[in-house]
């Protein structure tokens, strides 16, 4: 009798483990969780409360320093300092991802960015948005704007912008914002100050030819 019970219990537990293995193989998660933990295309969590319901319409200018966490996570998706400073937020070194959602009526988007002050080096940055590639070398201590065209509404659009940095700067971390066991300074790529939506496509610079 006991032998039978043991064998039945072992079989039952085995079946239950198969069910758990199936659950592990097939997570049932939303897009935010998927991006954050499974595909790792985001590491700033947009809380459920912010995602539920209709999203607020995007303003024509998003000043990163004026929106706090967790709103910043809608834009700063991967490798940023998510608690912005008064002027904006630094990205981490090497690479970062930015989410540039489409805004009705907008045909272009302009990023206002800055670099770490001298004696840091000039930062070569490569921006890729919806297949459009822009490369810039931004001198240290500079604030500049970079424009990107947006496709007309109805056309396919990937809002994920990939940024990669050939070099990086170093900035001190405000002691009041440092987590414990963290370094006193940080390697950064660029700082993002604002995202501005424009009604017209940027005019290409004259080539002189």
């Amino acid at each position, binding site marked *: 009798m*006991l*032998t*039978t019970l*043991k*064998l039945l*219990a*072992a*079989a039952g*537990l*085995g079946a*239950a*483990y198969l*069910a*758990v293995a199936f*659950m*592990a193989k097939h*997570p*049932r*998660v*939303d897009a935010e*969780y998927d991006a*954050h*933990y*499974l595909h*790792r295309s985001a*590491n*700033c*969590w947009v*809380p*459920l409360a912010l995602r539920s319901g209709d999203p607020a319409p995007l303003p024509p200018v998003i000043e990163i320093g004026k929106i706090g*966490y*967790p709103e910043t996570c809608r834009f700063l998706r991967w490798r940023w*300092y*998510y*608690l912005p400073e008064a002027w904006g937020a630094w990205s981490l070194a090497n690479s970062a991802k930015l989410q540039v959602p489409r805004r009705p009526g907008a045909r272009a988007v302009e990023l206002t960015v800055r670099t770490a002050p001298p004696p840091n080096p000039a930062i070569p940055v490569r921006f890729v948005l919806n297949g459009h590639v822009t490369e810039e070398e931004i001198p240290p201590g500079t604030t500049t704007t970079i424009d990107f065209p947006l496709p007309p509404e109805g056309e396919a659009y990937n809002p994920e912008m990939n940024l990669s940095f050939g070099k990086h700067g170093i900035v001190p971390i405000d002691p009041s*914002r*440092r*987590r*414990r*066991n*963290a*370094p006193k300074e940080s390697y950064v790529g660029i700082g993002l100050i604002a995202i501005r939506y424009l009604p017209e496509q940027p005019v290409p610079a004259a080539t002189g030819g």
Partner: protein
Amino acid sequence: MGSRHDALVNPAGRLPQAAPRVARVRAQDTITWLVALAAGLTLLKLLLYIAAAQPFGGAEQALCEWDCQWYRHTIQNGYDPEPRLVTEHDFTNWAFFPLFPLLARALKFVTGLSAFWAGTAVSVLCFIGFAAVSLRYRELTRGPVVRQTSWIVLLIVFPFSFYFLAVYSESTYLFVTALLLLAVRTDRPTGAGVATALLTATRPTGVLAIPYLAVERLWHARLAFRPGLDFATRMRILADSAFPLALAPLGIALYMAYLYWLTGDALAFSHIQLAWEREFVNPLKSFYWGVMKADWGALLDPHSPQSQIYGAMFVPIAGITCLWLLWRRLFLETWLLGATVLLALTTGVLSMPRFVLTNPVFLLALGDGVDRISSRTVRISLAAVAVLLQAYVLYLWFLESSALM
């Protein structure tokens, strides 16, 4: 359960069966006295900790550092349904396995204690439980000549033993591991299965006990295929092999099913490691990078990141300990320590000192070392030095030293 050979090697393994009843009763009295001593000294130590914490903001503030805050949060509120931002990182408590917080939450519910004191009470009880079980286990594996009083004193004065009274899962892990070791040694396969299930609910590294149990039970199962046995006997042997093995992953499986219900991801406990910047790396590279960092200076600044070389230093210490245990043919102990360190090393050397120093197998090996010191004066002197070191380490803990995270 693998003990037959060990018992022949170590005559002490036969003692419980061979010793006369009077000797067994005397041994039991001795163990009871030693457990009472352990309980008394542990409570005294806790009172001293509480008194020492007063200038640092009181016990609840000064004694609750690093992961204690996660455990306290979990005991108080259960598991978070989604991450929350804590100092630039989206953390949640899914990485903290449920047995310890569940026990503390149950105690909190029954007694009305705060989350911190309920957690402390569970740690204290598990530590005393470990002392009791380890006395019996040492008697079986180390023989009747072991210095059991010295062992209890070692557990109390060990410089890093403050973890065992903290709101951490260290004591629960100690106790459950000791139950597993004892069940294996005394040939109780179902007990070993239950202990492994509890271990897998205590820490992710608890799953490392499963392969050992699997090999041992499969080896046992081969007996079912010997010629000349009747069907009922074959079935009994197979049931005795399959049932403990089926019990072993129960703890982690239940936790995974719970996480699936809570988050939709049964592996959320693993995926959240990203928030602590723990990612899989070659363990050899982890060790090499830690050594090459040569950041001894970080040890002097409590607020610096944890010294990498200090963490890496504990890898060879664990390796030497494993060799010692292997030489003594204590295979399960060797496996539990070696595999735990290797698994931890796959995510770097962060917290390696704690993983090694609070590992029950490391403590048992340390006890072996103390057993070999024949001079009472030397043992007392070492205990005095250990008490001073413990006071210093506790002071560093109050300062939130990263070396102790």
